[in-house]
């Protein structure tokens, strides 16, 4: 489904994966897609900047709402036993792929692969983004359509964080349509 994605949008998805791994989350949720969009520095990030939304604040909120992975495993406590958690993780990931040691959310695809799997909500948001691009009569799926998809999905962590910042689907869509008409 990524063939119609612009460079920014593709970059956002790749960065979403990076954010998930960095937070030790074993899934890519709407929250990581939002962070990916913000970090991709394209039309999606510019749209959100217009609402005062930036990556660092959102990441803090993600940690506040979701937490970091492995919160129940303290590397310092394991070090007192001579166990190096980084070493354990490296070995496990060498065999089973990135994110293998992290707690898993219920994802449709529970299998262990090289990719951190998308949650059902994140997949839904991506599908809705495509529909948003079509509704705006745009050929390509841009990063700003990902923002609309996240807002349209409505129930994910990303939608919640955006709602807390007063970003609504209607307002975001209006800005995109208004700019394109100008």
């Amino acid at each position: 489904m990524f063939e119609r994605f612009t460079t920014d949008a593709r970059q956002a998805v790749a960065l979403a994966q990076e954010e998930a791994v960095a937070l030790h989350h074993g899934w890519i949720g709407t929250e990581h897609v939002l962070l990916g969009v913000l970090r991709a520095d394209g039309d999606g990030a510019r749209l959100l900047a217009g609402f005062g939304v930036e990556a660092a604040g959102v990441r803090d909120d993600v940690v506040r709402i979701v937490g970091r992975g492995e919160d129940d495993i303290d590397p310092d406590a394991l070090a007192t036993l001579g166990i190096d958690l980084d070493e354990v993780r490296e070995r496990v990931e060498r065999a089973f792929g990135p994110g293998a040691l992290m707690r898993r959310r219920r994802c449709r695809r529970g299998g262990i692969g090289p990719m951190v799997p998308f949650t059902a909500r994140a997949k839904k948001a991506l599908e809705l983004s495509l529909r948003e691009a079509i509704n705006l009569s745009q050929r390509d799926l841009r990063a700003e359509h990902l923002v609309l998809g996240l807002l349209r999905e409505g129930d994910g962590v990303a939608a919640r964080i955006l709602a807390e910042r007063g970003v609504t689907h209607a307002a975001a869509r209006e800005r995109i349509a208004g700019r394109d008409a100008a």
Partner: protein
Amino acid sequence: MAAQQTRDLAGAVDSTDPQVGLAAVASLRNLVERLEELHVSNARERGWSWQEIGAALGVSKQAVHRKHGRRRRLLG
């Protein structure tokens, strides 16, 4: 964390401070749980029976199925 700090903590392995010892046990247990989930999932994906997995873990097939069966169904 600083290397010195790590050495100080590592030196605490023979400490009798319950806080240090219990925190280490809790983290170790959680790590073991995570590894067990991972390896049980892998074994199931490779077609191992609950019987075989239980035998390898040194527990009954009922115990391993009770613990992991539901999670496996949710993930599947």
